[in-house]
């Protein structure tokens, strides 16, 4: 554990070595929250609620989804492709820590370094958007638990997809498509409750909704106690299934390691 913490700390330091970059990201995030609030206010117009969803709920949803998305740093998403493409994977493989564990530790380190910025952004986001508070104290607790699970799901997902690089070498194109689809199906752009029936079913059987939709819906009390427990159970299930998948993919990738560039 000490070793994983040390790896995470190193990655956190790398992030903090480029503070200005992160502050820029923060400004971008607040701008996004502000624009989304403007758009949804306009969409709602004079109406208090659409399909039984009050404006404040909608604003809370988009704000949280944005902040979470930023916290889970989807634009870096995974460190694997870079390491494979530049041949640095060779160095990772002679460390006395498993490759996948190193990647996960690094990702956790990045998030840990980002978290204070996200926390600092939250009051501004609340102010900018006029979002609703958590439905109840219990919902707030449930949100934090579900958020952590959502993070686990997105991290393992990124490992599985990142490992594809061992087969394709170049993953940029697939990645953009993957990210678009994942972002949409996670409910980061439009909450699942506004999706048409068929699409909603698709989103519900895939792991992506466990990343963004589930925690946010718990925060807003859109899921009652029973449904919330079930939803976090589903999240746990996804973590387990995806972790097993990651293990399987890695055991195959191991034989495909090629170190590029001499």
């Amino acid at each position: 554990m000490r070793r994983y913490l040390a790896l995470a700390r190193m990655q956190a330091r790398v992030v903090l070595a480029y503070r200005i970059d992160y502050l820029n990201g923060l400004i971008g995030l607040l701008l996004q929250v502000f624009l989304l609030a403007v758009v949804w206010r306009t969409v709602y117009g004079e109406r208090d609620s659409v399909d039984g969803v009050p404006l404040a709920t909608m604003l809370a949803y988009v704000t949280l989804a944005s902040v979470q998305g930023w916290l889970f740093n989807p634009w870096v998403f995974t460190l694997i492709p870079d390491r494979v493409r530049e041949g640095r994977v060779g160095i990772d493989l002679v460390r006395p820590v498993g490759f996948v564990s190193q990647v996960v530790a690094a990702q956790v380190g990045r998030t840990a370094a980002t978290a204070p910025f996200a926390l600092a952004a939250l009051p501004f986001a609340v102010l900018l958007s006029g979002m609703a508070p958590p439905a109840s104290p219990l919902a707030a607790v449930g949100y934090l638990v579900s958020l952590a699970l959502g993070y686990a799901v997105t991290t393992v997902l990124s490992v599985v997809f990142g490992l594809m690089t061992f087969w394709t070498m170049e993953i940029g194109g697939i990645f953009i498509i993957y990210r678009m689809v994942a972002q949409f199906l996670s409910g980061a752009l439009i909450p699942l409750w506004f999706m048409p029936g068929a699409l909603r079913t698709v989103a519900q059987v895939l792991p992506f909704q466990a990343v963004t939709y589930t925690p946010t819906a718990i925060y807003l009390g859109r899921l009652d106690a029973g449904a919330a427990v079930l939803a976090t159970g589903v999240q746990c299930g996804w973590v387990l299934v995806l972790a097993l998948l990651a293990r399987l993919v890695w055991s195959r990738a191991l034989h495909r390691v090629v170190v590029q560039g001499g």
Partner: protein
Amino acid sequence: MPIIRADSLVKEFRRPKRVPGRFGAVRTLLTRQYTVTRAVDGVGFDIDAGELVGYLGPNGAGKSTTIKMLTGILVPTSGAVEVSGVVPWRDRERNARHIGVVFGQRSGLWWDLPLIDSLHLAATLYDVRPADLRAHLARFTDLLGLDEFLTTPVRQLSLGQRMRGDLAAAMLHRPDVLYLDEPTIGLDVVARDRIRAFVADLNRAAGTTVVLTTHDLDDVEALCRRIILIDHGRVLYDGDVATLKARHAPHRELVVHLAEPGPVEIADAEPVAATDGRVTLRFDPARVSSADLIGRVLARHRVTDLSIVEPDLERVVAGIYADRTA
């Protein structure tokens, strides 16, 4: 009991066959045909604990690929490899605990952070005790001259500094085996000497087994007793440096500066060049000793200066590669 055993190691790389002609790029993408290249083709050797072995060959000979199989990075296509009783690729983490690896072309240090951070991380990853860390760090700082740039971010280090930092990070946990993959590539003379001295010291004082790949033959002459020479993925020679020279370059040369220019005719020596009273005689030390030969020359000619030229490894190796491709 050898510490490293490699037996009939083979590594093949597969890449999709390029389809020439119209829409070649697209058809390449869809093709199911592959070209197979054999980077390593049946390499085998045993290395005993405490040896310092030079593993050399021209570019693309399969040196780095072999090292990557020994270190557990690559899985061999066939053949067996064992280091300290561990199959490196099957048991990477256990293998990693008792080896150190330095790649000349690639750094294991953290690019954006001060060098000292990478060293501390290495100490944590390998469970180096704080007291040992202090002792090793002090020693390495002294031997490699790290103190002037310990707190500098790695991205701002010169190549020579980075290389020294990499060496220190690779040796902090006192591994039994050190693999150096072209450690002196692109370095200036001072940095090169420093690294050579460090490696020689590790081998002598701590008994670290060192495998050094390089195409800088000065490294080899300075450090190695044994060399393994490979080309096209096969071992061409495995033995000590002196034997290689004796076998492939038996001749030596005596260069004589004459007070009065003129032809030199001496038994057992063949003049191979003569310019302005500077005559080069080639002889076989097995047939005539250099002392004898010098005596014979001095008996007949007035000589202002003379010297004996040993064949250098570089020429020997170049000769072997040339013979092989011819």
